[in-house]
């Protein structure tokens, strides 16, 4: 039977999934909301259904049944890391294939505490902190003192702790602590907040690293126990809301910059650790292990993302399988449908540097406030070294929907080495045209100047 995929997402990721399906010769069906009617992913698709909300599993599944779909691709965001959705997809009376890891894996690796616990058991370094939620102040204070001591011993000039709601995420319910006396009141505040917002009083305490590089390892596994990696990425450049803006692959470039440690060794270490954990949990899809690396070259596992990521393509861009280009979304779908890899780690080679620039309608000078409005002119240059991923049409005005992230486009630039890649990145930013106005009538800002500025900082530890 020919498989038919339901694409349960919007924007550029929906377009990339469509493209992967076309490459694999699979049928697909698209869903969209009224606000997205002008989006390219809707215009390009032949079979499409209007739904009320991308986040509502009932809408997705009702359409999947009606359209005779056999599989669901959640993309990223929305339902991608909702283990209940993944479980429902496979457990319902008309089961579908979930393009992603098994739901148990999503559940177990979706909890940061659980990942920490597992990492500790396997001897994988994690940022010091609690691995069980704390419920009372005395324990919290004892733990906080221990962590302050650790930070001082590790040469941290201004030791800080983070107190977080264990059920939280995405920067919500996190507070910083500078000294021991603050622990008790802040702990109580976070606990009350956690209870109110997440219905669980559990609180965790973690040491805060002030200076680090944010690295990722791209993993691919399948149901047959095969497991490979597609190298590393560096995603240190983020907006204050901890949203990634510039990403590079590979994670470090020793030819471009030297450090007080051996970057090759660190990369090897984090790849090995990531593979080890992926193997332990039987990881069976694409996934990303996120790490923090300190200027001393110490690496700590932070979390695991059990989904395809926005920045997957820069890893694909620098990778070759037997000299042929890679598409990770296609690989993800293939694995979900039960296929074998057909290659091993030895067949995967890496070449050059890839940079992803995330073009966002935001006012970077006003605390990265997201903007809405209408794009009246949008054009980007065509080069073999440049891939642009966008759902914004070039041929007509486009109104940015207010209910979703104001991401406009991803510019993916490749160069034989890092300086070449950087130069091309600058060129791409210069040559692209983005004009429009906000709903208030003013000019529509984007983060292009910010991105240009930030290109200077790539691979460098902040001072």
């Amino acid at each position, binding site marked *: 039977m020919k498989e038919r995929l339901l694409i349960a997402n919007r924007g550029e990721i929906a377009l990339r999934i469509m493209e992967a399906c076309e490459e694999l010769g699979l049928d697909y069906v698209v869903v969209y*909301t*009224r606000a997205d009617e002008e989006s390219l992913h809707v215009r390009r698709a032949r079979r499409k*259904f*209007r739904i*009320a909300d991308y986040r509502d599993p009932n*809408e997705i599944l*009702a359409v999947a049944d*009606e359209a005779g779909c056999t599989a669901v691709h959640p993309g990223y965001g929305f339902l991608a890391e909702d283990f209940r959705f993944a479980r429902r997809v496979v457990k319902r009376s008309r089961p579908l294939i979930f393009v992603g890891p098994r739901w148990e894996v999503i559940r177990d690796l979706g909890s940061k505490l659980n990942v920490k616990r597992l990492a500790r058991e396997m001897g994988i370094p994690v940022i010091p902190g609690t691995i069980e939620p704390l419920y009372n102040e005395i324990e919290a204070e004892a733990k906080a003192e221990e962590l302050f001591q650790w930070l001082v011993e590790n040469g941290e000039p201004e030791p800080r702790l983070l107190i977080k709601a264990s059920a939280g995420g995405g920067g919500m319910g996190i507070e910083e602590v500078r000294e021991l006396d603050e622990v008790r009141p802040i702990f109580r505040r976070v606990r009350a907040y956690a209870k109110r917002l997440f219905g669980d009083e559990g609180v965790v305490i973690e040491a805060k690293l002030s200076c680090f590089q944010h690295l990722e390892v791209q993993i691919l596994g399948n149901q047959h126990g095969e497991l490979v990696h597609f190298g590393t990425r560096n995603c240190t450049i983020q907006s204050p809301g901890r949203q990634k803006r510039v990403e590079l692959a590979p994670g470090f470039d020793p030819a471009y910059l030297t450090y007080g440690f051996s970057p090759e060794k660190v990369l090897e270490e984090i790849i090995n650790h990531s593979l080890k954990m992926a193997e332990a949990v039987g990881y069976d899809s694409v996934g990303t292990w996120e790490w923090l690396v300190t200027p001393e070259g110490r690496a700590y596992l932070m979390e695991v993302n059990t989904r395809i990521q926005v920045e997957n393509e820069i890893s694909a861009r620098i990778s070759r399988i037997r000299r042929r280009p890679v598409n990770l979304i296609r690989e993800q779908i293939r694995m979900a449908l039960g296929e074998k890899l057909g290659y091993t780690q030895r067949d995967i080679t890496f070449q050059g540097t890839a940079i992803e620039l995330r073009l966002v309608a935001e006012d970077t000078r006003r605390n990265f406030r997201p903007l809405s409005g209408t794009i009246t002119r949008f054009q980007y240059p065509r080069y073999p070294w440049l891939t642009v991923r966008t759902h914004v049409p070039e041929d007509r005005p486009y109104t940015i929907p207010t209910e979703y992230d104001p991401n406009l486009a991803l510019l993916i630039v490749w160069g034989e080495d890092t300086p070449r890649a950087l130069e091309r990145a600058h060129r791409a930013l210069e040559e692209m045209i983005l004009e429009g106005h906000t709903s208030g009538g003013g000019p529509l800002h984007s983060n292009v100047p910010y991105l240009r500025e930030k290109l200077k900082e790539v691979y460098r530890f902040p001072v």
Partner: protein
Amino acid sequence: MGIDHRKINRLLQKLRSHPYCVYAIETPHTGYLRSFRVKEGSEVQPGEILFLLERERNLKPVKSRVSGRVQRLRQDLLDRFVEAGEPILEIWHPLSQEEVISEILQEALQVLRAPETARYLPSPEIEARLRKDGPGKALVHPGEDLLIMTFMKRETPIRHEGPPAVIYRVFFDPQEVVPAGNPLLGLCSPEEVPYIDRVLARIREEWPEQ
């Protein structure tokens, strides 16, 4: 400001030939349209079930929020899968005298709309004037505080900009939260008051109280 007489006349004409507010009832989400509980032309009351929509084996009644007559019922969609936001029927809600007046006034007057979803109160002076002179007579001068907005536990005054104006209509209830964008006050210049009075008098004659 100035009143566009032609526009008001056009609107009046439109309302006269079509004294309804048409509410298009759409599907709230996808699903199978299982049955209609109303027929073409039937009269419905608020809260009455219009049709049943089934999604993931959950039969959900979709209810009417207004009263009126059912029109353009899409009988052809029965037992078919429908998308979210699909128009299923229209409810032609006959406008009452008050609703017509409110409609006309929103067109005729210079409307001050709620900048935020918040609670609003007339400022003490304005309230006193409204009480003394009544709407249609209370004058407000440039730079005076018209309203006080209570928003996130803070009180922000809303000032009257522009030439002196008469508060012709109060559209909100101080007890209730007003959604952003809803009309708060209708203002006009003192010279326009007699004209608007005449328009309203005409409406009161033409649309008898129900």
